[in-house]
């Protein structure tokens, strides 16, 4: 590949990064709170709530994300076929975000659960005796401690998400990896793939730096 082509490729990738980052941030925006909800349902004492959640967790963690993407994107039309009605499809980007959200919420839920269970009951009891409400206890006392506990596990998942955004191309979302593949075909060179690799590496270095500095900032207490 000529230098000029490479230059063009990098420029294109920079703009495609916008989509990658959008997928990344939107997924986090939705899956971080959803995961919290799932975690709390998973910890419910009622089997009837717990069981479907466990099933959801099994599917999401047990099958490849790429299949979940395809499934969610095509589900409405397949369902429409079966029921002989027209169910409008989700836009590609929306479907990608939905699939990523559902998948990552499952992983986050399990991380939250571990983190929440690691907060000593004494903390809950102290808050209860002081008269703090359940909600106050959760958001003021428990959650901040959970965040500190789960930081390393979350860092890992965030880094994986950066790489997983590449799968969005499966349902036609144009992000870095798709661009790399196209360029690979056009120029018959695998260099674009490695340029993409560099992009992921840079993004992940940022993520990793972010987490380690957050970790240091939370180091003020034990």
């Amino acid at each position, binding site marked *: 590949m000529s230098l000029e082509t490479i230059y063009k490729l990098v420029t294109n990738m920079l*703009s495609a990064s916008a989509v990658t980052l959008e997928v990344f941030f939107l997924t986090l925006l939705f899956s971080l709170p959803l995961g919290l909800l799932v975690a709390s349902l998973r910890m419910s004492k009622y089997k009837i709530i717990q069981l479907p959640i466990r099933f959801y967790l099994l599917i999401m963690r047990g099958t490849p994300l790429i299949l979940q993407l395809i499934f969610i994107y095509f589900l409405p039309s*397949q369902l429409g076929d079966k029921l002989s009605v027209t169910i409008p499809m989700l836009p590609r980007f929306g479907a990608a975000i939905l699939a990523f959200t559902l998948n990552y919420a499952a992983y986050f839920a399990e991380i939250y659960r571990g983190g929440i269970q690691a907060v000593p009951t004494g903390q809950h009891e102290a808050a209860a005796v002081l008269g703090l409400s359940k909600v106050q206890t959760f958001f003021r006392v428990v959650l901040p401690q959970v965040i500190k506990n789960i930081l390393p596990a979350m860092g890992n998942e965030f880094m994986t998400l950066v790489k997983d955004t590449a799968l969005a191309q499966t349902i*036609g979302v144009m992000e870095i990896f798709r661009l790399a*593949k196209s360029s690979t075909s056009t120029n018959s060179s695998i260099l674009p793939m490695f340029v993409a690799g560099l992009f992921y590496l840079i993004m992940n270095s940022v993520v990793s730096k972010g987490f380690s500095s957050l970790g240091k900032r939370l180091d003020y207490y034990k």
Partner: protein
Amino acid sequence: AKKDGKDDTATTSKSDATYVILEEALAEEEYSVGFRKDDVALCQAFEKTLAEMKDDGKFAKIDKKWFGEEVNILDKTKIKADATDGSLEKVKTAGKFVLGLDASFPPMGFTDNDDTIVGYDIDLAREVCKRLGVELVLQAIDWTANDQELKSGNIDCIWNGFTTNPKRQAALCMSTPYLENSQVVVTLAGSNIKTLADLAGKTLTIQGASTAGDALDSKPDVKSGLKGGAAIEVDDNVLAMFDLKAGGSDAVLMDKVVAEYYVTNPNAGK
């Protein structure tokens, strides 16, 4: 395959040619446009417009742009205009026509270095849509899901060097073929594979989930002679050619139009 000698000039005229296309093709194929099974009227309208383009020379012009000569094989006599379903009206009302493609299949439809989707099929489609008065929308899709994309109405056709075959004819509304293709064997210059028979005991790579696999299945004698009794399937043609160059395999089986594009591309394999 069309034996017009172009292959030879293409491969030997370059001093740095790395790849050679075997003259003996493994299988002949034809490219069509795939529409939804029920969208016969739409398909026929496209066929009719293509025929007009053939008549007024536009088709030949596009041929020349991409292949240097007239290559299309559109047979006007096979085109009918008897369908009455509302598919054409639907597209016309919508004012746009969505073409689904893998966008990494040069020279039929691919993304150029300016991140624009171009290609032979794209030029044809653009002209047809202009004449039908609808906007052409290009939608990159993952090839694995092309069938779903079409069925679900995300795209109106698959037009991307789409090989016609009985299975696809049964599942889709396949247009009258417009281009001839063959599955050809690509080897490295200097390879001792000169004929299909030479493939015996050799490693052959193909792009997974491509019609190359179907073509190979139609030649059981060749297939069974291969090392391991089957082709190696890798993710795409570029990897296959890389693999060939690296020495991971002895030959690649792929669409002739694509092979020629790569073989004549001065940057191929860099």
